Structures are given as structure tokens and as C-alpha cells.
């Protein structure tokens, strides 16, 4: 999460890490309105989502985010990733030496799979080959992110919009 060249960081990432990882990524360009009360509601829903089915979480969150065009819900357990994508928030997975966009719904995961979820602003200065290459050489999700940020910095010195992304590497036993 980086504010870029903006006054403040407006995007939002809500995380709940229990037996499964649940994430809500909100991409809020300048024109988007998102109240503090709505933020608190989404946060509470994601924090209490451990026992909710993904579909139930999605249905509960939808009325709050209905005015937002760009957001994504993600749940990852040992074997699967489930996503629901709205607008300019994207998820990709590295598979068979290629970077593939994840569709809405459930996708099975394997050990050492690499997944990135990011906003359109983050993706603007990158291409699929760069994301793929940084993914396959990185030993950790943090290193992958650092490498991607270097590439964005080369293009715009991190001086434009808010930058939001989550990188993940699936590791059994972690």
C-alpha cells in the first residue's frame, strides 16, 4: 500500500487471517466516495468472516460496496482460491510458465503457486511478462512486491495514484 503522489492513501485492504485468508481490496480513485462508517462495516464483516461462507460474505458486503465500482473479495485456503472481482481490481496466477488472469469463482491451488491481486493503478506501469518474471525469481511474496515496485518506480517514481497490491506464494505448512 503506497499513497503514490496523492495527498493520502484512499484505497483500502481488509485482511482476516485465520484457517483461511480473507481479503477485501478496494480501489478508490479520487471520484469514488467511501464513508468512514462504510469502512468500519466492511472491516467488521471481514474480521468476522472466518465462519462465513464466501458467498455469504459476498452477499453481506455487497450492499455496502454497491456504489463502488472497483473492489475484490478473495479467500484462500490450503487448496483453493475464490475470488469475486468488480471493476479495475485484478487477480493473476502463475501457472505453467505463464501469467493467467483468475476468473471469478474458485480455482485450485498447488504448492509454490504465486498469486497477485492488484488495482488497475498498480497494474498500469507493469506488463504480464514483468509480473511473471518477478514472481518466478522471488523467494518470498515481499521480495516479489519489492521488485514490482522498482519497476513502477522506474516508470513514474511512485508519483501518481495510490498503489495497492497483495502478492502471495502458496507454501504447504506455512
Amino acid at each position: 500500500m503506497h499513497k503514490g503522489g496523492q495527498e493520502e492513501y484512499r484505497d483500502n485492504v481488509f485482511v482476516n487471517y485465520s484457517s483461511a485468508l480473507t481479503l477485501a481490496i478496494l480501489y478508490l480513485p479520487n471520484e469514488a466516495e467511501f464513508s468512514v462508517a462504510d469502512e468500519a462495516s466492511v472491516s467488521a464483516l471481514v474480521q468476522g468472516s472466518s465462519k462465513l461462507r464466501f458467498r455469504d460474505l459476498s452477499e453481506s458486503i455487497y450492499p455496502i460496496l454497491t456504489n463502488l465500482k472497483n473492489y475484490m473479495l478473495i479467500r484462500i485456503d490450503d487448496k483453493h482460491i475464490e475470488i469475486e472481482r468488480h471493476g479495475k481490481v485484478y487477480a493473476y496466477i502463475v501457472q505453467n510458465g505463464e501469467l493467467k488472469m483468475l476468473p471469478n469463482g474458485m480455482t485450485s491451488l498447488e504448492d509454490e503457486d504465486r498469486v497477485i491481486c492488484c488495482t488497475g493503478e498498480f497494474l498500469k506501469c507493469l506488463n504480464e511478462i514483468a509480473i511473471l518474471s518477478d514472481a518466478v525469481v522471488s523467494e518470498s511474496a515481499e521480495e516479489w512486491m519489492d521488485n514490482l515496485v522498482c519497476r513502477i518506480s522506474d516508470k513514474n517514481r511512485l508519483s501518481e495514484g495510490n498503489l495497492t497490491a497483495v502478492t502471495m506464494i502458496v507454501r504447504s505448512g506455512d
Partner: protein
Amino acid sequence: METSFADLPTLQSSVFAALVLFVVTTIAFIWLAVLYVNKKSNGRPDDSELYIDCAYFCEIGKRPSQQDSVFISNLADYRKYGITALVADGMGGMEYGGEISEKIADFVKDMCPMSFFATEQNADELRRFSNKLYDEYKLSGGSTLAMVHITGSFMNYYSVGDSDIILIRNGIPTILNPRQNYMALLIKSLCRNNKQTVTAYSNPKARSLIDFMGNRNPRVIYTKKPIRIFDGDKIIVSSDGLTDAVALRNFHHYLKDSASSTALELKRAVAARKRPKQDNYTGIVFTIKRSFM
């Protein structure tokens, strides 16, 4: 039966019609074959039978000596072991840069044929060799390393320092390997503090290497999983003498169908810049094509 001169126009038009029919049938056959291949491979041609066209240049620039070294494994062994190609850029201003880069090229030659799937072990071998160089030269020299290993339709790469491995797909060049220089550290630090990174680029030490062959236990960057390559891709392994002289965004001017033409164009482009302090410049160019055989 005799053919009179009066029949000639009829005969000519029959031959012409037969020719047209033959050409149309051939085109239809090729078109259907291409459709079939694309459909069978889910819209993407089957790239299991790719072949490689390779060329390189290694020029001295305005430097007093050549400190870049190149190694390309035997193309005749491509089907069996794939192809390995290395550029090692001896660090200028250090006494033994050229000597060390040559030793790295010799070492990689001895490593071949290397296992395509044992990337971690290969990286370890390179790191151990760097330790040997460290013991021998005690930091009085160093070199970068940029190496690709291509087999079938997949590529692995290894990198230490700031030489470049560039993949060009659909005419768009992308540097694959992260650069191990001070600038990367500065950017990371500024980003952690939620700051913009303009200052990182104006830092006079930004391009100093933080890792290189000849250092003790350098971090060898390597692909944990291979990258898929496709028909039409171009791969360039180069020293920074090339990318400093020809900006990546201008590469498309010099890309030709064959590897040798591309290499020649890039070499001429660097020479044409006439930079007074032109570094040694080296590039290995691969073009990936699908075999119809």
C-alpha cells in the same frame, strides 16, 4: 485427333482454370490446417517444436580492453540439452574484471550440459564459484552474470549484478531480471516510508552494484519455475553497454526477423551513437520460431 490453332484459346482457358483451382485449393487447405492447429491448442499454436536462431556481438566500444565475455553452448546439442548462453560483464575500473569474466565463461562451459530442472543447484554452483573468485582476487575485480537456459518452449535464467536479460514479445521489450544495485535498495527504503522515489535516481551511487560475481556469497537470482516462451519471441542477453546506449523503448527499430540481422542492427545502433565513453557492449540474440517439420 488434331488440335487446330482455333482450339488454342479454349486450351489456354482450361489450363488457366485448372491453375486457379489448384491455387484456391492449396490456400483453403493451408487455412483449414492453421484453423485446426489453433483450435486444437486452445487458440494458441502448439509451441512444443520451437527452434532457436542465435547470433551475438561482443564489441570493445571506447574502452582500452574487452572485459565482457560470452559463452554459448553447442547449438547441435539443442534438442538434447537445450541451449545455454551467458554474458559476463567484467567490472570496469577494477584490475581483474576481464580476467574474472573469462573465468566465469569457462566455468559455465564446464557446467554444461546443465540440468534444466536443477536451477537451485546450478545457482549454488555459481555462488560457490564466486566464493572461489573472492578467495583468489579479494575484491580486486568482479563481474556480472546474465545467463539463460532454453529447452523446448521454456526458459530459465540466472543473474548476478546488472546485466540484462530481455524478452521481447509482440514487439514489446521487458527486462526480466531485477538489477542488484544500490538504487533498488533506495527505492525499497523510500517505498516503505510511503515516499516518492525521485531522489533514488539522482543519487550518484545509485548504479553501484550490491552483488556481483567475485563477491563472497552473492545472491544468485534464478527462476524457481521456468518461463514459457512462444513462437515469435526474441530474447537478448546483454551487458549494460548495450542498454545504456540504446534505450529499451527504441529497441523495436532494430528488431528483424533473424537473430543475425537483429544483432547486426543493434551493434550498428550502438556504434552510431558515437558515445565518447562507450563501454564494452555485448549481446546474444535469440529468435524463437516454430518448426513446421
